[in-house]
């Protein structure tokens, strides 16, 4: 038995504290899969379960943006995020609701007839913002007049303020199927791409310090708008690289953070993301010391081990680790090469549990896996 519990909480814009517990999905899941990335942290979680029609409708209508914490059999947090999309299969009818494509705060940039760059005031649907948090959209419409730009803004808000519902109907012979629910959760890191910001300061400040500033609940921090993340700086290193605090207009928090941390620490790249308790972690990538092995396996054994030969359960595997296959070790691997025949840097992990298999896929950097490219949800 693999008692993984996916606990679901009511939406609460109160920082890192989950809302009211509304469901424990332990024992009900047919499949479970989560992904965690060295850039972003907890990335996606998808689980399927068979439900009654009434329950499927409840999830479709009422549960988007609910928080989720997945616990492993040892009471450890193995993943954390929010419900980004719900897909319900009612026989040959399918309904899905998703936060992707939703926007509840809109502004429009345009060029006046005099050639001046202008922007409308923002328009907000405060009720949707209270329900889901603020999600920005900036449109550009070229040369026009203010009234038209405002009309465009208002139409866009009306069109995009709600979660996107996508029905699919197939009327055909064959099995009609059952009522099956697919829940897809996204990591809290993706909410950094929801809100745009700007900053006029041109001071040069350590990039780690700036990232800490950008996750605070006041000042320039995203928490002043969407208070979803922990404000702790404990796991954010001082990078030693100073960069400008200037943020151009219409830049999302995620873009700025990735611009800052993408500069590394002057010597090596960094790995960062939102992990347990919605805390931001920034650290030097494990490839900086490629001979410090965290995970290993033996070809004759289908399990993952740590460097001390303790079994690492698939749901406990994390990215930003060095991995090696013991049987493939050569006599003289280069000490400064992260990716060699026997070892590579783990950029992303995919844990999958179903009724006929339990496993984890460790993906290297620069992976071409399609699901890795598509897994960044809610952008």
């Amino acid at each position, binding site marked *: *038995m*693999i*008692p993984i*519990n996916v*606990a679901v909480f009511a939406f609460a814009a109160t920082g890192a504290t989950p809302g009211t*517990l*509304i469901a*424990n*999905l*332990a*024992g*009900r899941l047919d499949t479970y899969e989560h992904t965690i990335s060295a850039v972003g942290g907890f990335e996606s979680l998808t689980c399927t379960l068979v439900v009654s029609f009434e329950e499927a409708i409840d999830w479709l209508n009422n549960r988007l943006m609910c928080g989720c914490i997945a*616990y*492993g*059999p*040892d*009471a*450890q947090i193995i993943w954390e995020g929010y419900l980004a999309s719900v897909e319900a299969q009612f026989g040959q009818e399918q309904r899905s609701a998703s936060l992707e494509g939703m926007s509840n705060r809109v502004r429009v940039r345009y060029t006046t007839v005099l050639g001046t760059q202008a922007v409308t005031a923002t328009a907000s649907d405060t009720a949707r913002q209270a329900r889901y948090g603020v999600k920005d959209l900036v449109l550009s419409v070229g040369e026009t007049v203010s009234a038209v730009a405002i009309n465009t803004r208002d139409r866009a808000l009306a069109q995009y303020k709600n979660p996107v519902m996508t029905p699919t109907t197939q009327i055909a012979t064959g099995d009609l199927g059952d009522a099956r629910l697919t829940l897809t959760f996204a990591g809290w890191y993706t909410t950094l791409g929801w809100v745009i910001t700007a900053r006029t300061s041109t001071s040069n400040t350590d990039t780690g310090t700036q990232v800490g500033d950008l996750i605070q609940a006041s000042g320039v921090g995203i928490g002043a708008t969407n208070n979803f993340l922990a404000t*702790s700086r*404990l796991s954010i290193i001082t990078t030693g690289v100073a960069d400008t605090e200037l943020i151009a207009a219409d830049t999302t928090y995620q873009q700025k953070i990735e611009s800052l941390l993408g500069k590394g620490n002057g010597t090596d790249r960094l790995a960062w993301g939102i992990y347990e308790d919605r805390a931001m972690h920034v650290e030097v990538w494990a490839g900086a010391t490629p001979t410090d092995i965290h995970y290993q396996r*033996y*070809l*004759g*054994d*289908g*399990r993952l*081990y740590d460097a*001390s*030969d*303790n*079994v690492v359960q698939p749901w406990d595997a994390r990215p930003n680790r060095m991995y090696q296959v013991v*049987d493939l070790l050569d006599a003289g691997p280069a000490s400064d090469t992260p990716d060699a025949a026997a070892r590579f840097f783990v950029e992303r992990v995919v844990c999958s549990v179903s009724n*006929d*298999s*339990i496993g984890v896929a460790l993906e290297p950097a620069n992976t071409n896996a399609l699901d890795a490219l598509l897994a960044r949800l809610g952008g």
Partner: protein
Amino acid sequence: MGTKNTVYLIAGGTNYYLSGQATPSQVKYAGSGTPWTVESTSPYELANNDVTGSVWVPEPAPRQTLYSGGPPFRNGRTPISTAYDHIVEPVGIQMKATTKDNAIFLLRQLDQILNLSSAPCILAVQGGTNTTYYEISGADVPVLPTYLSEPDGVFRATINWTRSPHGGVSSLTTLLSSSTFGNGSGANANTKSLGAITGDLIYEGMPLNIRFTPSSVAYDRVYAATVSERVKTSVSDTIAGDTSIYPVGVQFLAASGIDVSTLRTDTRLRFRVLARLKTLTNPTKARVWGYVNYANILGQTDVPLPIVTLGANTAAQLIDLGGYPLDTLRNVIMTAPAVAVVLYLSSTDGTSVTATLDYVETLLYYDFASATGARSTSTDRIYMLGAQNLNGAAYLPTQTPQSFVTSSADVWRKMALIRGTLPRAYSGASLYVAAVRSSDNNHTDTDTITVNAQLAPLYRTIRGGG
């Protein structure tokens, strides 16, 4: 000695015996009364019976084991996980009636009770002294091709039912009744034996229903585990005025010489660390971290423990540092392995912090879980439920683990958050319990928790005297 098993269905509180007397003694249904409620007059009889020679017995659910590794890289495979699926089982049955209409009535009745939608139909099988009860989630009752041409009013069909993998019992076994557990110290132990347990799965784990009533209303989180061993190592070491910042820290005295030799011979066990700190200054600025050290060599770092930022309580806190397999020690050479738990104190930002490491508690455990739910009074209860009898007749595993808070009169308060695996009963195991306030880890080691624990034994097939 009679060899036939007594087999009946329970639906809506009524017994329907399938083990009537075999031909030629089988009683014919004449269209009135309820003869099926008594075994000797039931018009139903299993095709496999003491007269035909092969007595029907429920099939044990096949184990579904996931394996890892194997050829061509090695010989054999390693079992990773085992569970049981429900059983789809054909059972031949014959019915005797005076007329065709009466026979069809018997057939229809079978189909109806086997497919109750209000509650699962129960299959009861008494082999020997005691009865085992299975839940039937649905059934088909196709008639055999010879149905309409059977002589002497005998009509045959095959029941294809889908039933639970294990059978349960009609009443739970009380293992602990209003037992007073301590919270780490004091006159009452916090780990108590579950005693001798019955059932077929005594080594695989069977459901427990546990009720916790912590003495203080402040406690909204209980930790519970079924353990092989619990060791409390007193440390009583104070670090004062620490301003170091992780990864630098000041080490507490080690909790050393912790015997873990049982890990070598029991692959079900894992090693868990909890630590109690007291007399804290600026605890929200303090971080505790460390290692499980195999060799008790200064500076050796074998199994890293998580970095825990303490809660706000300055009196005392109990923190959970997680569970670990320690597979490295499961080998033939280290016949008496012992480990040390080495903990460090750091400040989050250079603020001076002080803490006394009171003791370290280590468990060799089978299952560990926490349940968190706010309580309104000190008599409110926290439940962890692994068994249910919604079918009205017998106790079987819950479909999903359940935990919630109730009043002392068992009036619902709220759902509790479950982390981990609800403790199951194992042969020779004890129950470990601790209670804290989740908001700040507040822990008073002389407090008590009143515990009731009941077992739902499970059986793979017939029980006999067990």
